[in-house]
C-alpha cells in the first residue's frame, strides 16, 4: 500500500468501526447472536486493505480494462439475485430479483468479454500481429 492510500484506508476502518458500533447499539443481541455485524465489518476492512494494496500496483496502461474487470467482479451480486429470484417468495419480490439477476448477468458477460478483448490488444515491441 502506498503512502497516498494508507491514510484513506485508516479513515475508512475508523468509519466502518463507528458504523458497526452504532448499528450494533440498535440491534438487540437476541436478533444478532452470531455477531454478524462485527464479523462482516472485519471482512470489509480487511478486504478494503487488500483491494487498495493490490489495485495500487496495477499498471497505468491497464486502467480501462481494470475498470471493466472490477465491474464484472462486482456483478457477483448475481449470488443475491439468484437467491431472491429462485426462492419460494411472493412473485413480486421474485420479479425484482429476476430483473436484478438480468442486470448482473449483463455485467458479467459484457464485463469479462470486453476485458479479455482489450487485454489481448496490449502488445510488446516485437510481439508481432
Amino acid at each position, binding site marked *: 500500500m502506498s503512502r497516498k492510500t494508507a491514510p484513506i484506508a485508516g479513515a475508512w476502518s475508523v468509519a466502518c468501526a463507528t458504523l458497526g458500533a452504532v448499528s450494533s447499539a440498535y440491534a438487540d443481541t437476541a436478533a444478532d447472536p452470531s455477531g454478524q455485524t462485527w464479523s462482516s465489518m472485519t471482512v*470489509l476492512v480487511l478486504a478494503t486493505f487488500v483491494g487498495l494494496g493490490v489495485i495500487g500496483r496495477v499498471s497505468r496502461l491497464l*486502467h480501462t480494462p481494470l*475498470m471493466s474487470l472490477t465491474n464484472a467482479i462486482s456483478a457477483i451480486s448475481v449470488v443475491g439475485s439468484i437467491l431472491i429470484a429462485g426462492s419460494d417468495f411472493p412473485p413480486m*419480490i421474485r420479479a425484482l*430479483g429476476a430483473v436484478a439477476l438480468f*442486470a448482473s448477468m449483463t455485467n458479467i458477460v459484457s464485463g469479462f468479454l470486453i476485458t479479455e478483448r482489450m487485454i489481448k*490488444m496490449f502488445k510488446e515491441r516485437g510481439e508481432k500481429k
Partner: protein
Amino acid sequence: MEIAYLAAIVLFILALYWMNAPKSARRSVSAGVAAMALAIVATWSRPEVVHHLWIILALIGGVVVGVPLSRVALTAVPQRTALSHAFGGLAAGLVGTAKYYMWVSEGAAELTGFRMTAIVVETLLGFLTLTGSLMAAGKLHGVSWIPQRPVIYPLQNMTNLALFALAVVVGVSLIIAPAGPWSGVAFPLLIALSLAFGVLLIIPIGGADMPTVISILNAYAGLSAVAMGFVLDSRLLVVAGALDGASGLILSIIMCRAMNRSFTNVLFGGFGQVQETAAAGAEDRHYKEETIEGAAQTMEMARLVVIVPGYGMAVAHAQHRVAELYDQLTARGTTVKFVIHPVAGRMPGHMNVLLAEAEIPYDDIVEMDDMNPDMEQVDVALIIGANDVVNPAAREKKGCPIYGMPIIEAHRAKTVFAIKRGKSPGFAGIENDLYFRDQSFMLFGDAKDVIGELTKQLAVDEAA
C-alpha cells in the same frame, strides 16, 4: 458450498493481482470467470432455490444483452463502462428493495437496526448510481436530449445538499422504525430521492471531468455491493464489493491529483463558472500555421518524436492513422514515444486502450513524470487533439483555472506541432499559451486526415 465462495474470493484477488502487467493480465479474466462460475453454481444448487424458470430466463437475457455490449468500438468504451455501473447500481437497488419488502412481510422482528442500515445504504447508493451513471453514459454517448455542457443554475449545491439531507432523514427514520406507520410512503420516497439525486449530481459535470466521475461512480457501485453483502450476510459479496470500491477510489484519487482538484471540487465545483472571465483575457494573438510538407520535413530531421494524444484522437478515430505514422517514423530510425496524461480522454486509461487497439507496442508509451525531465531533448512534440493537459499556463499563470495541474511539458520541446479541429479553446475554456510560442505550429483539420497526409508525405519524401 462455503468453500466454493472462499475459492471465488481467492480467485478474484488473484485476478486483480495479475493486472499489474499486460502479460500476466491475460490470466486475470480466466481467474475472474472461474470465480464467477463457481459462485453461480454454488448458489444455484442451494436447497432454498426452488424456482428455476425465471433464473434461466434472466441469465439468457443477460447473455443476449451482454454480448453486443462487449463488441462496441473501443472509442465507445467510456459510455459502455458508465452503462455497466448503471446496471450494477440497478441490481443493488432492486435486491435492497426486494429484501426490505420481504422482511416487512415476515414481521418487523426481521428488520434489525443493522439489516435496515445496510438496506438503506444499499438502496440509496444503488439507485443514485443507476441514474447518475445513465446520465454520464448519455453525456458520453452524445444523446441529444441530455445536455453536453454542464447545466448550472442558482443555488445548485444548496438544492443538491438539501435533497441529499432529506434522503438521509428518510433513511434514518426507516432505520429507527422500519415498519412504522409511514414506512409505506418512506421507502418509495427514499428510492425516488436517490434516483433524483443521481441525476442532479451529474448534470453540472462536463466532459473533461468524466474520468473522475466515472471512477467515483465505480466506487459507489462497489460500495452498494458491499451493502448488499451486509443485507444478505454474504462475505463473498462484501469482499467483491470492497475490491470494486477500492479500485474506484484509487482511480478517483489518481484522476483528481492529475487535475489538481479535490473530490468535492469535481462534484460541487461547477467547472463552467470560472471560465467566462478567464476566456475574456488574452485575445488578438495569432496562430502560426504549418503546411503538411513543412511538418513532414521537420519530422524527417527529428531523432526523437513525442506524440501526445488527447480526446480529439478518440473523437476522430485517428488511432490507426497514428499507428501508420509511428511505423513510418520508426522505420526511418526515429525514436517515437507516446506520452499520455492520466486524465486524457473520457475515462482512466482510455488513450492506452486506443493505442493498443492500433497495435502500438506499450513499451513506447511513457508516463508523464518520466518524460517531462527529458523534454528538452525532444525534437518534435506532436499534439493530437489534446489541449489543457499541455497548457503551460498551468505552470506559469497564477489564478488561471487550471493553475497547478500537472501537465506534459511539451512547451520545452524544440518544435511543437499541434493538430486541432478548430480555433476554439479546449474544455476548460482557456487559451492555450503553448500554441502561440515561437516553436509552435498549428496543423488545422480533422486529426485522421491530417495524420494520414503527414504519413503519405513522409512516404513520398522517402521514395524521392
